[in-house]
């Protein structure tokens, strides 16, 4: 199994993602610089990691969305390759239009960094199968702009189509309908604000993130 982690200038969870993927799935993980115009062949998963790509200039994820590699990421997603955007990666996927909505500054203006309890809203996605019917998970959030926003029609559509994958049990940032993670219509592109890469073994306080990585690698 093969995965790639895209590295943008300002990414800071890229190595965490590599280690988390290797340890939880045994996947072979390649780091891909954002200026690349080709991805390694045969990928099962592409991760857009957390961090502050381009220093969050203009808007979080706005500049990274225009990086050369994103054309390849989009093409791979259209072929059905799994793409997971974590935190800043979620912001990038929204900016590039691969997921609907946008991430606003947190209500209360606070940078929120803590473990959060999540409801697994849809246990039948490529990213949640290994939770084996469990309806709750714990992962860590760490963001200042994690307040998911979309208009009501979009939110209704996401909920109606089972595309809300994770919801906060206690909303830490004002996200619309407490949404923490969504998938695209085809179900292969995931965006989530909590970090599975900071919750992949018990020493980190939770190993639930490993189940997310195991789910998606097993689905390939």
């Amino acid at each position, binding site marked *: 199994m093969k995965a790639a982690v895209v590295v943008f200038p300002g990414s800071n969870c890229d190595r965490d993602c590599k280690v988390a993927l290797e340890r939880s799935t045994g996947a072979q993980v390649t780091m891909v610089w954002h200026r690349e115009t080709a991805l390694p062949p045969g990928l099962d998963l592409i991760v857009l990691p957390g961090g502050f790509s381009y220093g969050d200039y*203009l808007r979080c994820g706005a500049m990274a969305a225009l990086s050369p590699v994103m054309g390849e990421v989009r093409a791979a997603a259209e072929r059905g390759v799994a793409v997971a955007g974590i935190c800043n990666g979620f912001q990038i996927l*929204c900016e590039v239009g691969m997921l609907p909505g*946008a991430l*606003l500054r947190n209500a*209360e203006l606070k940078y929120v960094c803590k473990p959060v309890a999540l409801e697994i809203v849809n246990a039948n996605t490529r990213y949640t199968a290994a939770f084996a019917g469990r309806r709750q998970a714990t992962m860590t959030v760490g963001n200042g702009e994690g307040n998911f926003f979309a208009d009501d029609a979009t939110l209704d559509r996401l909920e109606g189509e089972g595309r809300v994958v994770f919801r906060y049990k206690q909303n830490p940032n004002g996200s619309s309908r407490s949404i923490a993670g969504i998938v695209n219509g085809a179900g292969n592109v995931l965006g989530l604000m909590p970090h599975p890469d900071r919750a992949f073994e018990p020493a980190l306080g939770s190993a639930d993130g490993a189940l997310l990585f195991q789910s998606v690698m097993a689905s390939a």
Partner: protein
Amino acid sequence: MKAVVHVFLKPGVLDVQGKAVQTALHGLGWDDVDDVRVGRVIEFDLAGEDRAAAHGRVDAMCRRLLANPVIEGYRVEIAP
């Protein structure tokens, strides 16, 4: 020509910065202040003479990059 782009969160999108600034202004005694919005101004030079054409180009830049239409509105000014 000089282009000036004003970008603001759309009405109905919670502007937490604006809210914090408003609270601070109230704290300083300016109680009559209401509906503070904090936005962004982007200025740049643009070659050419045709202001209408320039307006169209800057509008395209806004839709493509300078504003996020999901959450932001924008206003374009073109000065000679």
